[in-house]
């Protein structure tokens, strides 16, 4: 197949025109990257939190601008999270956990500038490579997903929720419960047939629970309740000295490991595209794979630059992977894309094959904008590093009430009445309990977002099949997804049992 057949050149040219004929579109990218850098660099504040809090601002933007703003936050946050991981061994976000493994030992050796340069280079490469691949594959992907009907969609939604649950390890049951409770919460209000369920007589619940304020409560406020006893993130003076020349040296150093960069980016895209996984897992897998394949695995964890490159390239390219799932199927791959899905809904856009086919130029424009964001990230990343390094000195007793107040104001902005702030409060408390007792918060949020879609997919399947269960067996893709779902649900249990059996037999042999 000619690789040029993969690209719709007319739409690509339309996308370029769309991006550059309206320069205002780029105005939102700079604050977006800065917000992402700031939130990513502040431990305890997640990228999804930043996106949820600032989403009300997208009400005043058109769809493309809103997407540029939100993806810019994601791009900035994916690098920002690495800053405190390197400087203080505190990952700014869950997607930078593996960055701390070697980044912090490098900082302890006085190489924190080089480590920051490595992280910046790997992040920008990850974003660029990931979106380049997305640009090449989005058209065939949209053709492929045309074969997906309501039944397949329903199974994909269920698969996404079971995947999140299966990642909970010892708490798989709680993960599943959280996902299913989310699904049920998502169906509150009027259904397609005009029946009102679970509204408790409140007119505010007739259209369902306001999802974005609920998301703000679950992701942001509940996490801030947990951090209340954290005083300072770090006070060490030595972590504040940032030298541009040394950062640039680290930046160049990253390209001496092209295999690590490419492998990390590929892992990021693949893992990012699987619903419910995303960058929190991809950085760890990339790190482990790099360590496993290295000639000197014992040097990892002691300041090996390849560890930083592996982690940062994977967490940054995950954005493209999760964006592929969001655009092609309308299913969020993780917390950040869940917020993007809510932004889709706010602008009356439904992701999926039809959206890709009919608005290919918009899709390409989103991808191209990410190419531009790479260069802005390099520039803004370099300029903001001295400031970012000092964020960790802000006292949490100032940060927590300020972010909570912003979330409250933002929630009012979304609903136009006090239902928004009250939803933040209710779901902040629910989220706090869920986190405390190991229920999956992303599972519940994604379930809530997809509840309505799951119900209408199931209803349409019922109407098409005439209620015949055998219809499942006439749909090979649906059957395949169902099998994948069962495998992802039961494989962790089977693997655990197998390991226990092996360990027992080894003991008996000994």
């Amino acid at each position, binding site marked *: 197949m000619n690789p040029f057949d993969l690209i719709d050149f007319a739409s690509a040219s339309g996308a370029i025109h769309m991006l550059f004929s309206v320069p205002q579109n780029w105005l939102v990218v700079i604050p977006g990257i800065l917000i992402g850098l700031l939130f990513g660099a502040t431990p305890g504040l997640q990228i999804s939190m930043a996106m949820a809090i600032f989403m009300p601002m997208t009400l005043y933007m058109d769809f493309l601008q809103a997407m540029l703003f939100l993806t810019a936050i994601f791009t900035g946050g994916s690098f920002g999270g690495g800053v405190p991981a390197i400087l203080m061994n505190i990952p700014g976000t869950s997607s930078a956990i593996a960055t701390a493994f070697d980044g912090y030992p490098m900082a302890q050796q006085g190489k924190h500038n080089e480590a920051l340069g490595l992280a910046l280079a790997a992040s920008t490469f990850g974003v660029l490579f990931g979106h380049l691949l997305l640009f090449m594959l989005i058209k065939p992907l949209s053709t492929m997903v045309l074969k997906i009907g309501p039944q397949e969609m329903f199974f994909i939604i269920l698969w996404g929720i079971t995947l999140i649950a299966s990642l909970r390890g010892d708490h798989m*049951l*709680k993960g599943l419960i959280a996902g299913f409770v989310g699904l049920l919460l998502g*169906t*509150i209000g009027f259904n397609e047939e005009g029946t009102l369920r679970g509204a408790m007589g409140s007119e505010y619940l007739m259209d369902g629970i306001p999802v974005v304020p609920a998301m703000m409560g679950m992701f942001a406020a509940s996490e801030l*309740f947990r951090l209340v006893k954290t005083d300072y993130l770090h006070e060490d003076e030595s972590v504040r000295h940032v030298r541009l020349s040394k950062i640039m040296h680290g930046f160049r150093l990253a390209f001496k490991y092209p295999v690590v960069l490419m492998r990390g980016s590929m892992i990021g895209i693949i893992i990012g595209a699987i619903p419910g996984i995303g960058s929190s897992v991809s950085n760890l897998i990339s790190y482990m794979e790099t360590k496993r394949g290295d000639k000197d695995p014992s040097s990892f964890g002691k300041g090996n630059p390849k560890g930083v490159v592996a982690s940062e390239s994977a967490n940054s390219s995950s954005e493209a992977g999760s964006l592929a799932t969001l655009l092609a199927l309308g299913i969020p791959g993780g917390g950040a894309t869940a917020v993007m899905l809510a932004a889709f809904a706010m602008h009356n856009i439904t992701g999926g094959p039809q959206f890709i086919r009919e608005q290919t130029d918009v899709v390409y424009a989103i991808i191209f904008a990410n190419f531009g964001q790479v260069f802005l990230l390099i520039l803004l990343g370099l300029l903001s590093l001295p400031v970012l390094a000092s964020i960790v000195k802000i006292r949490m007793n100032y940060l927590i009430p300020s972010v909570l107040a912003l979330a409250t104001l933002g929630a009012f*902005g979304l609903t*136009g009445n*006090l239902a928004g702030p009250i939803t933040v409060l209710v779901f902040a408390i629910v989220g706090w309990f869920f986190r405390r007792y190991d229920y999956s918060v992303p599972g519940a949020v994604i379930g809530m977002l997809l509840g309505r879609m799951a119900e209408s997919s199931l209803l349409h399947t019922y109407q098409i099949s005439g209620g015949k269960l055998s219809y499942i067996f006439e749909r090979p893709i649906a059957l395949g997804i169902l099998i994948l779902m069962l495998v992802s649900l039961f494989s962790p249990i089977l693997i655990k049992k197998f390991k226990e059996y092996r360990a027992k037999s080894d003991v008996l042999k000994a």
Partner: protein
Amino acid sequence: MGLSLNKLLDLALLMAISLFIGWYFYDAYRELASVENLILIAPVASLTLVLCAAEFIRNLREKELNPKKMESIRDSIPVMVIFAGYILSLEYIGFDVGTTLFIAIFLRLHGELRWQWIILYSVLFGLIMSYFFSQMLPYPMPMSLFPTDY
């Protein structure tokens, strides 16, 4: 068998989830007992109730949780109470006064002893942010010092 407070709260949360699911299923059924209305709710609610029962049994059999792994309830509950007070008072005192008071009270209760800092930061943040949102949003906000049409 003695159960720790954490374990009891864990089980209570599970019970609360089960009760909510049971109530929601009943409410939907009472509203309209048709296939179209219950096509997702009935199977998902039933399955979740089964999972809750399985988790309840698993949880009772499991060893006690390690309390060191969890943040203290005593630390988080006061923040929830202040936050709830802030949100529920907005209707009456508005975002400008409410946000200023919320930040000032939070700072005072969480170790900030310099009154001049508390006043300066809470007043600046509360008033500037509330005013900014009241000007930006297309609908009136409850405010006291900068009244709108709310």
